[in-house]
């Protein structure tokens, strides 16, 4: 890498490190919004493995997020009286989600495209309905009431609720979560980039392009598809665990179909298969609605003296419009996966 690139990288890193401190001065809410956006990037990158790389259309991805979130909630809340440390629960949640991914993958191996989408959609709903109803005969999930008072993160005796002051700079709870999420996000991005160039990544791409030919090339398509499901789900599980810790509360209504579609939209809008595109798509679809939430009302009050269109309605309208425009003008996404460019860069 050239010196210029290094300087750029250092600047980006500094900006990312300073971001929560700057945002805190605007309002802690924006740090929370940023944290949620990172979680969505997380989810989008996980789904990108399944949809973007392996070409398996999954409409129930949020179920793995739910599995991770509930595993964390059950093992670290007064509900069962368990308070295991997060470094133990997060991997357990990831593992459970990964297994759920394999469980979904196994019976759907022969399905493709629309048919797979329907089954995965059903799977997502099944998980949500289970969470809703597993309060009887034994109260496991506490039903629609959800699980409350989930423990926050606690690293080396430092809790993530109160504000700590370090070098005279106050670090709020959400700001601390931000740094943890940032580290996890970096890990996920690295894993994604490595996967893309690995043997496994190439096998997935081959399966996506032509399954029969992939088999003929010696790829064990069954195992590779299961691996894609399991890996994507694992990321969802980690994100779910973090979600539980951050929110302190989970209930089935956080894991509705709408969320699955939102994550899928991020992948499609950004550019399936391209890590940076997916990242950008996730940021766009996370921040724009929040931005609207804070601007639409004042602007309407200013212009018309009253609220004519609810921000929520406008949000969906813009969402739909953006997706239609993307499909029309950039069908491969805003920043599509460019195999050609990749090859040229490697040749240099």
């Amino acid at each position, binding site marked *: 890498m050239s010196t210029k690139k290094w300087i750029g990288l250092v600047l980006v890193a500094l900006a990312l490190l300073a971001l929560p401190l700057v945002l805190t001065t605007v309002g802690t809410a924006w740090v929370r919004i940023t944290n949620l956006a990172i979680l969505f990037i997380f989810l989008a990158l996980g789904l990108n493995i399944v949809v973007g790389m392996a070409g398996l259309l999954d409409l129930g991805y949020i179920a793995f997020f739910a599995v991770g979130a509930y595993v964390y909630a059950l093992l670290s809340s007064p509900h069962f009286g368990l308070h295991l440390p997060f470094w133990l629960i997060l991997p357990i949640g990831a593992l459970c989600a990964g297994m759920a991914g394999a469980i979904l993958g196994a019976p759907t191996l022969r399905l493709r495209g629309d048919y797979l989408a329907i089954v995965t959609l059903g799977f997502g709903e099944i998980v949500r309905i289970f969470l809703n109803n597993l309060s009887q005969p034994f109260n496991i999930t506490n039903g629609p009431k959800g699980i409350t008072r989930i423990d926050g993160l606690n690293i080396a005796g430092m809790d993530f609720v109160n504000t700590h002051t370090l070098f005279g700079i106050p670090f709020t709870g959400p700001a601390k979560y931000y740094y943890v999420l940032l580290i996890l996000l970096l890990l996920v991005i690295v894993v994604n980039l490595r996967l893309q160039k690995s*043997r496994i990544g*190439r*096998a997935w*791409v*081959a399966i996506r*392009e*032509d399954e*029969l*030919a*992939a*088999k*003929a*090339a*010696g*790829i*064990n*398509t069954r195992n590779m598809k299961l691996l894609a499901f399991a890996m994507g789900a694992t990321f969802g599980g980690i994100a779910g665990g973090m979600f539980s810790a951050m929110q302190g509360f989970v209930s089935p209504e956080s894991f509705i179909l709408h969320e699955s579609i939102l994550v899928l939209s991020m992948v499609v809008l950004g550019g399936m298969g391209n890590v940076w595109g997916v990242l950008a798509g996730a940021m766009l679809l996370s921040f724009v609605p929040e931005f609207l939430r804070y601007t639409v009302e004042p602007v309407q009050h200013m212009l018309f003296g009253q609220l004519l269109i609810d921000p929520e309605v406008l949000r969906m309208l813009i969402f739909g419009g953006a997706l239609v425009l993307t499909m029309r003008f950039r069908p491969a996404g805003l920043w599509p*996966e460019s*195999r*050609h460019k990749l*090859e*040229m860069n490697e*040749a240099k």
Partner: protein
Amino acid sequence: MTEQSKPERFALLQAVNLDVHYGGIAAVRNISFAVELGELVCLIGANGAGKTSTLKAIARMIPSSGEMRYRDMRLDQMQSHDLIRHGLALVPEGRGIFARLTVAENLTMGAYHRNDKAEIELDLQRIFEMLPRLKERAVQVAGTLSGGEQQMLAIGRALMGRPKLLLLDEPSMGLAPLMVEKVFEVIRAVAAEGVTIFLVEQNARLALQTCSRGYVMESGEITLADTAENLLADPRVRAAYLGE
């Protein structure tokens, strides 16, 4: 298999009483055939005769019953993704190239099971030499190639696995006559290098002119089996497949 019915030469591929069913419909009925080492054998027949099903059964892409042997192995007990490791490569019907990968990437996918990087690079150069059109388009996305180039690419990709037996499914499909000639030139060149080829083709005349032996398939059954020369002269073949 009894001793008497074994062919005299070494059969690289042998199928005995092969059956393929799709649900209740029989696509391939009780057929037996053999391909010997170094041969170029074709399987001809009309649309829907069961040719592709036969080839897919050999490549273990669809379930079948009956015994199949490849070298000293029970082919019918093997899994499709293991075949290339043992030198059995399939060029699927409709070419099956990886459209969004580059030509070079497509070719290296053919060597997916191999770890010998230096040798893979050598094979890649060898294939570029044999198919110069592919070299010109090495960094081009394969979906942008013409049909004939895609067929060449599919064959090249299969060769990257260093096959002993190459299964070709309708390499002439959807190609202009001039391109068909070129593809068959490549097939002859591959055969000349010592690769055994089992070719499924609708273009009976061209297939029989290229191969040494042929099987004729009709509604799931093998109705004729002879040398290519005899089949070309056979009045039944002439009437049904050569349009005379």
